[in-house]
């Protein structure tokens, strides 16, 4: 039977790690000592976000016209620091008139939702509701 351990329940640390993990993908796992996961999550989200932006994907803002824009904003804001650096990463701005821009929009939104999943995992580990095997680093 594989040995499992529950991370000590520390609500304050879990919340700080969750916010940190939202802002910098993977940082939440790093704060909880899961360095392997932290590196993988950072690169997965970063690659999707940067490629999506460089393909001139659209970045939704909070003042969207309809529910789909708000849904897009909710997905995009999950990128944390990449959302706020979008203008610097892609100075040319979005162009969804070309197919690549449309693909970029999807990649950027996927990165945001993926990061939200990582934040949920931080909360699960931090609050002790997820059993972590010793191999799970």
């Amino acid at each position, binding site marked *: 039977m594989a040995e499992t351990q529950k991370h000590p329940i520390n609500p304050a640390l879990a919340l700080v790690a969750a916010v940190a993990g939202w802002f910098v993908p993977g940082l939440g796992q790093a704060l909880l000592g899961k360095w392997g996961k932290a590196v993988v999550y950072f690169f997965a*989200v970063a690659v999707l976000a940067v*490629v999506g932006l460089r*393909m001139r994907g659209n970045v939704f803002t909070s003042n969207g016209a309809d529910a789909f824009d708000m849904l897009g904003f909710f997905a995009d804001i999950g990128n944390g620091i990449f959302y706020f650096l979008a203008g610097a990463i892609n100075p040319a701005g979005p162009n969804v008139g070309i197919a690549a821009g449309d693909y970029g929009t999807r990649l950027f939104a996927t990165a945001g939702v993926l990061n939200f999943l990582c934040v949920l995992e931080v909360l699960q580990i931090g609050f002790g509701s997820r059993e*972590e095997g010793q*191999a*799970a680093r």
Partner: protein
Amino acid sequence: MILTHFQSMVIFALCVSLAFAFLSKETTDERIRYAIWAFLAFLVVAIGIGWLTYPFSR
């Protein structure tokens, strides 16, 4: 940066399958198996749907 649909799909599949493997599996062996399976499943399903919808594209 201009990537084709296929290239963007491969990047998407790589990143998402890797993250899913680490989110859902605990051991290295399980993660490798799951990541490869999910990566191939993304590609096969996308290409399959592409072929199935091709007759309606024009």
